[in-house]
């Protein structure tokens, strides 16, 4: 029995786009054309080699209409949070030239671009510091239908503006797909702290695309606690001189989770700094993937770029694929990268045991500490506390180590 409202992802692309402003119709048309030409990723697609999405690509989904995230905090003074749908109807010229992902929407992000129907635009005008964080909750419908949602968020910060954004992607049913895109545009000397939490993610594909003006700062902390199939890409384009970004991530996987984090940092201007620290714990039959690329363009002299991925393997049946890499075309740069996949530090373990702490408790303490150093970088205290709790709940002997730090 087939459900007539269900379609494959590519099959749901319309032949033409007839509503909305002209520039948006053109944008969607280009995204759809690109998709029809390149298709969705297969296992032969290099960037998707370790993350098989055939089951998603071949599956039929019904479309979730309500896909805009919910605003679950107050909006700080001076900051505007508006519905994308409404702005596109009433004042579409405000968004012209936005929403194009820097001109290169690919794969799932192209699909989102072609099909999103609503979302949020968070606009922080020049000189405005949004003191309190904005919190968004993404949760797709709890209906038992196999559904797909295309949440879309645009964040624009004017010169010298500041914002903390907390996003939570809570679990849907394992067969519900969330394909999200968040675009961030940072003006000169703008500062943004972005916390993104994936909890019990079902099927999730997400992309964050950041374009940074001179002297701007973007700090991202991503915490991923489980996921049947999660792929998350962050791309930072350091376009203005002196911009900096810090991308941190923590992932904890178990069971048959499959969690894939990709980062791409492009140093396009001089005197920019980037630092990435991703840490993960893989147990059960889980698979973790980390792929990080730093590209330093020829004119990006005085670049400083660091990248680190450390993994703890807690079972013989868990798998970690990690691939940090650098592509450097400038000569006056300081770059480093490092990767480890291993077990707990034996010296630390012995130190704890030599003080009387039983071996299993020492294991728990060190396992928790391994991810906690990343979770501690979450800039929003209530979220930080919640993440610590969530880690403790998921780790073996978590109850015994409450208050470890």
């Amino acid at each position, binding site marked *: 029995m087939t459900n007539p409202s269900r379609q494959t992802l590519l099959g749901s692309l319309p032949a033409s786009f007839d509503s909305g402003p002209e520039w948006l119709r053109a944008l969607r048309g280009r995204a759809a054309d690109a998709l029809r030409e390149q298709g969705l990723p297969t296992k032969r697609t290099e960037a998707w080699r370790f993350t098989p999405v055939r089951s998603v690509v071949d599956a039929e989904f019904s479309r979730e209409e309500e896909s805009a995230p919910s605003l679950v905090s107050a909006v700080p003074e001076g900051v505007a949070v508006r519905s994308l749908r409404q702005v596109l109807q009433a004042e579409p010229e405000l968004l012209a030239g936005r929403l194009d992902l820097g001109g290169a929407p690919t794969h799932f992000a192209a699909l989102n671009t072609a099909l999103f129907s609503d979302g949020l635009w968070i606009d922080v005008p020049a000189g405005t510091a949004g003191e309190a964080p904005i919190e968004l909750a993404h949760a797709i419908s709890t209906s038992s239908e196999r559904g797909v949602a295309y949440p879309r968020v645009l964040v624009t910060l004017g010169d010298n503006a500041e914002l903390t954004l907390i996003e939570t992607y809570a679990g849907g049913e394992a067969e519900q797909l969330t394909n999200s895109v968040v675009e961030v545009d940072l003006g000169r000397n703008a500062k943004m702290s972005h916390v993104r939490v994936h909890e019990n993610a079902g099927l999730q594909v997400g992309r964050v695309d950041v374009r940074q003006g001179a002297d701007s700062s973007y700090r991202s902390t991503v915490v991923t606690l489980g996921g049947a199939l999660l792929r998350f890409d962050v791309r930072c384009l350091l376009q203005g001189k002196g911009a900096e970004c810090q991308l941190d991530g923590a992932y904890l996987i178990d069971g048959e989770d499959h969690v894939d984090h990709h980062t791409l940092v492009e140093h396009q201007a001089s005197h920019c700094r980037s630092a990435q620290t991703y840490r993960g714990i893989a147990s059960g039959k889980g698979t973790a993937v980390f792929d990080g690329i730093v590209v330093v363009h020829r004119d990006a002299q005085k670049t400083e770029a660091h990248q680190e991925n450390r993994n703890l393997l807690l079972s013989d049946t868990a798998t970690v694929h990690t691939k940090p890499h650098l592509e450097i075309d400038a000569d006056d740069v300081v770059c480093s990268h490092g990767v480890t996949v291993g077990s707990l530090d034996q010296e630390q373990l*012995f*130190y704890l045991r*030599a*003080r*009387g*702490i039983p071996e299993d*408790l020492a294991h728990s303490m060190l396992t928790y*500490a391994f991810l906690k150093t990343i979770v501690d970088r979450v800039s929003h205290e209530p979220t930080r506390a919640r993440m610590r709790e969530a880690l403790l709940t998921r780790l073996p002997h978590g109850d015994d180590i409450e208050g470890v*730090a």
Partner: protein
Amino acid sequence: MLKIEDLHVEVDGKPILKGINLEIEAGQVHAIMGPNGSGKSTLAYVLAGREGYDVTKGRVLYKGQDLLEMAPEMRAAEGLFLGFQYPVAIPGVSNIYFLKAALNAVRKHRGEEPLDAIDFMKLSKEKAALVQLPDELTKRCVNDGFSGGEKKRNEIFQMAVLEPSLAVLDETDSGLDIDALKVVAEGVNSLRGPERAMLVITHYQRLLDYIVPDTVHVLIDGQIVRTGDKDLAKQLEREGYADVQGAQQL
């Protein structure tokens, strides 16, 4: 308290300790002096139960029990303490949490009730003052970002909280300037008592000016070549290890 009998230890197939005999009674402080590579740290690690050391011969009795059969945490619970030469940093685990967990594990072993947070903080403050360890450091992560001197003071602070029966202090003086050395030594001295034994391992005599031992052993090439009173340390300082070893062989 501690009786080491004909202890032979190898690391990666290479003999390091070649027949150590040593007996320490409660209330005594023994010093082991020796040049680099003589096996001092190996002895300390073997006593604490670190992996990677193969005991090929001999035995160690601690309070009448076979020490070498016990897991490291069991040795600690039974009152053995190793002051590390190079204490490892543990980012993500706070000093105070770690020490509370350690103390309560030891108390549990002794059949005592765990200390609650308030009582523990009181105890911790009191003991930290003993080695002038700033409050801020007790709250940081274990040895994370500590200077060499701060790490050593942290070791003695832990010892003060855990109140061991036998303390093995491995080169507690290394990396300390004279002021820090005095603070650490005073901390150690305040913990001397009729129920507690100490084994102080050092390269230099300097530490023994401040922690005056009852007995001094000279360890060279995996064997104790001389045993004497505190004056032996002074003699070593004057004449060097080579002469002491030479005299032994005559």
